[in-house]
């Protein structure tokens, strides 16, 4: 599904140039659950942003579903992204002005799904995430675990092929964290490819494969059994 080779990304301030990704290459097959680990500043988030087409690489190739996307412009990337990729963030990033239902509905609105279909699909996914009873609440009325479940619901409502999770349990206690990891595992078992950035060895153990990064390069890969 994903093949990147010799990917490079630099950050420049006025005087300093920092290398975030240094000729990084890797592949992720459809249906995989990959964890990316490494110390702060190793390039995990940069990699995730590029994989999620939020950012473009400075050099190298990124093939997504057999399409080279490294040089796509923003509109094309946005288009590809909204139909194929779901995001889960550490800080949930729910929109405060919208209810649970409306937050989850949002991606469907942007992809132009009809209203009746939207209701059906949002209710379906809220049911699955066991958050249906909170559908008319606002994010700030929910616990962290509940918020992250809404965020996951929002990520999967469009039935994306790929879910990118950036430290999804980072703001949760261990019990809520485990629930979230169970949810992701379920999604993966139903066929969704998952790439997750994490600091937690515990969470990484849910994945099939761990890629360890240091200074923008792969230093080790562990295959989980």
């Amino acid at each position, binding site marked *: 599904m994903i093949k990147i080779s010799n990917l490079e990304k630099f950050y420049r301030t006025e005087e300093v140039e920092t290398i975030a990704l240094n000729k990084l290459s890797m592949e992720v097959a459809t249906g995989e659950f990959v964890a990316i680990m490494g110390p702060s500043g190793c390039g995990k*988030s940069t990699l995730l*942003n590029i994989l*999620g087409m*939020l*950012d473009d690489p400075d050099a190298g190739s990124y093939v997504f579903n057999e399409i080279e996307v490294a040089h796509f412009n923003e*509109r094309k990337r*946005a288009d590809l*992204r*909204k*139909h194929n990729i779901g*995001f889960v*963030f550490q800080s949930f*990033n*729910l*929109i*405060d*002005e*919208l209810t649970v239902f409306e937050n989850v509905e*949002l*991606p469907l*609105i*942007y*992809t132009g799904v009809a209203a009746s279909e939207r209701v059906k699909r949002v209710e379906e996914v809220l049911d699955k995430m066991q958050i249906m009873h909170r559908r008319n609440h606002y994010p700030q009325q929910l616990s962290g675990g509940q918020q992250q479940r809404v965020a996951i619901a*929002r990520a999967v409502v*469009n039935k994306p092929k790929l879910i990118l999770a950036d430290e999804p349990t980072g703001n949760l206690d261990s019990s809520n964290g485990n629930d979230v990891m169970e949810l992701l595992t379920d999604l993966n078992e139903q066929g969704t490819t998952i790439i997750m950035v994490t600091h937690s060895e515990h969470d990484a153990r849910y994945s099939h494969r761990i890629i360890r990064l240091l200074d923008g390069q792969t230093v080790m890969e562990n295959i989980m059994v």
Partner: protein
Amino acid sequence: MIRNYIKIAFRSLWRHKGFSLINIIGLAIGLTACFLIYINIKFELSYDTFNKKFDQIYRVAVDVRHPNAPVITTPAAFVQIGPSLQQDYPEVEANVRVLGARFLVQYGNSKFQEDDIIYTDPSLFNVFTLPVIKGDVKKGFEAPFKVVMTQTMARKYFGNADPVGKSIMLDSKYPALVTAVIKDVPANSHFKFDMAVSCATFEKLNPDVLQNWAGIHGFTYIVLPKGYDFHKLESQLPAFASRHYTQADKKEGVNYGYHFVPLKDIYMDTIRGGPQVGDLHNIHIFSAIAVFILLIACINFINLTTARATERAKEVGVRKVIGAARKQLIIQFLSESVVLCLIAFLLTVIFSNSLLPIYNQLSGKVTNTTIFTHNYVFHLFIVSCCIGIGAGLYPAFVLSGFKPVTTLRGKFSKSGSILLRRTLVVAQFTISIVLIVGTIVVYTQLNYMRSQPLGFQKDQMLAINFSSDPAVQHRVELIKNELKKIPNVASVTASRSLPGFGNGNSDSEIENKAGVMQQILIDAYYVDYDFIPQFEMKLAAGRIFSKSFGTDTSKAFIINEAAAKSLGYSSPSEAVGRKLLQWGRTGKIIGVLKDFHFQSLQEPVRPLSISVDPDFNRMLTLKITTKNIPATIAAIQSKWKTLVPERQFNYAFVDETFNAQYAAQVNFGNLFMYFAVLAILISCMGLFGLASYSTIQRTREIGIRKVFGASVTGIVNMLSAEFLKLVVLSALIAFPLAWFIMNKWLQDFAYRIAINWWVFAFAGAMAIVIAFATVAFQAMKAALANPVKSLRAE
């Protein structure tokens, strides 16, 4: 989709109540000011448009050219012009004459002096659109002593009874028949009247006037065919004029220029003047103020929205990650600003509707009685939507342009819009300071005009207007003596005019320095022997009128210094003894008075002639003492009732009437002040909002500074200085601008102040103090906060 946008817009506004409140209230205030000015201007520009023949009606105006004298322009014409034009030129479809008149009107026990009467032809009702309620305006009105009255007059004299066919009494001696009742003349008509008396009445009472083409009386209107180019007919007027010169005209070499003034231009014709004249200048000034106030309110919106960008950056990031296209985000932000503007629109409707009476009072003129007319509210709605889109466009583009990668990381930096925000704040305060300076200048000028010595005694002068009633004129000495007997009445004088009451003028010939009889249009006062001493006017040369010279009522004139100067005399004494010809009376100048202001100080003192003529007197002026004025007035009234029972006791104080000339300027000043206050209020609301966002953004910095020892005062100063610098910059831009504009405004006044440095110092200090008070509150709050909290929050 749109429903979704609007829903989100409402929630977002509700969540950020403070921000929304500043924006909505600011916009509503700005829109209200703008809207009230708009409907007022709209009214001013709507003058005479109610006439169905609006684009076909022309006023005939005559210019008079005497040899070696400047052209005298008038809005009026000879009474013969209208009928002659219609006779000579088939293009002229109709003509009508309108002449001013005054009568003491009586029906049964109701008796009032009516000053808004016109003599007119039956064609008036064909030319102008004046709907008839009762009776027939066409039947009978061509005969003498026929009257058409307005609805208000009909009610005043007849109550609910039908006036048609009833007879009223004019000046206690002429019975006149009411032939019709019409609707009141619309408020936006350039001439108004309460009663129309048939022109044949005028001919009956003044048979000689109609015989000659001499003396310019009243207004003449003609109707030309639709789409006709009036210049075509106008070009034939010189030939027409030359056919009608009198022997006297030819002898004196007088020339007349005839002109057509289209009805659409009459009300704004300040050069020729007329019964009611608008002020295009004021319309421009207030249009500019309206636009500026609205601009200030829009700037608040742009500034506060972009200042909040950091807050909304995350939301933009999330939406984009989820799949929002930039276009969708732009629409979302625009719907928010349109929703906000529409809430402001609703408030504006409420504000404007309740403030309209107050606005009318302030402007001194009832223009519109309701805002729910002429589609005004619909226009307001359209403008509100446009503002929503216009002011929302920039923030929408900025916000929707954020990159999700940066905003989601929280590493969003304050963008370059800070410079824009500062520029806009400077623009707001520049406008506000210009308005403050303007207000101070207007009031200082008004004060100056009211406090200048006028050259005569204006205090405790009670003037009784008896409308030249011959019954009073014939017994004037007896009445004066009786009034003088009242305690606290010091002296009494009779005259035709008084300072501040308006006066006529006369086409006269006066011997100039070269010894030539010079033609001059001179303001004319007709008085009695007591007038000059009672008003304590000062003599510059010669003597005043005296009974000991038997010829003073027939052969003596006094002129003022301005007249002497205009005739070329270097000193007033040179003018004494020179010849003067006026209204067929030949005499000599016996004295020159020092200039006194017989008109408002907006005008320079014009040349004036004064002569004694008991037949011309129109009012009596009593000098009373300051002792128990109400009792004195009551005593005068009861004496008046016994002396002149047929006349109402109409009185006014000279100083009050004189100052009433400044009513327009006072209203102008008041409106100016209110708008200046609004401008600074809205600007400060914006500044308050900006300051609060700025301090929120700098919370961490303030925390660090405090940890390392910054004092509260130091932090308040640091935060305030950021904004005060902008206000100081605004002042520097505003000062020359305000000086330029107000200096121009002052040019309209013959006697005017110089704009002092303290005006600028005061306006600048005021803006800075107000801005500091606005910002300091936020700064104090931030400076007093516990640094531990602000650092932990990061």
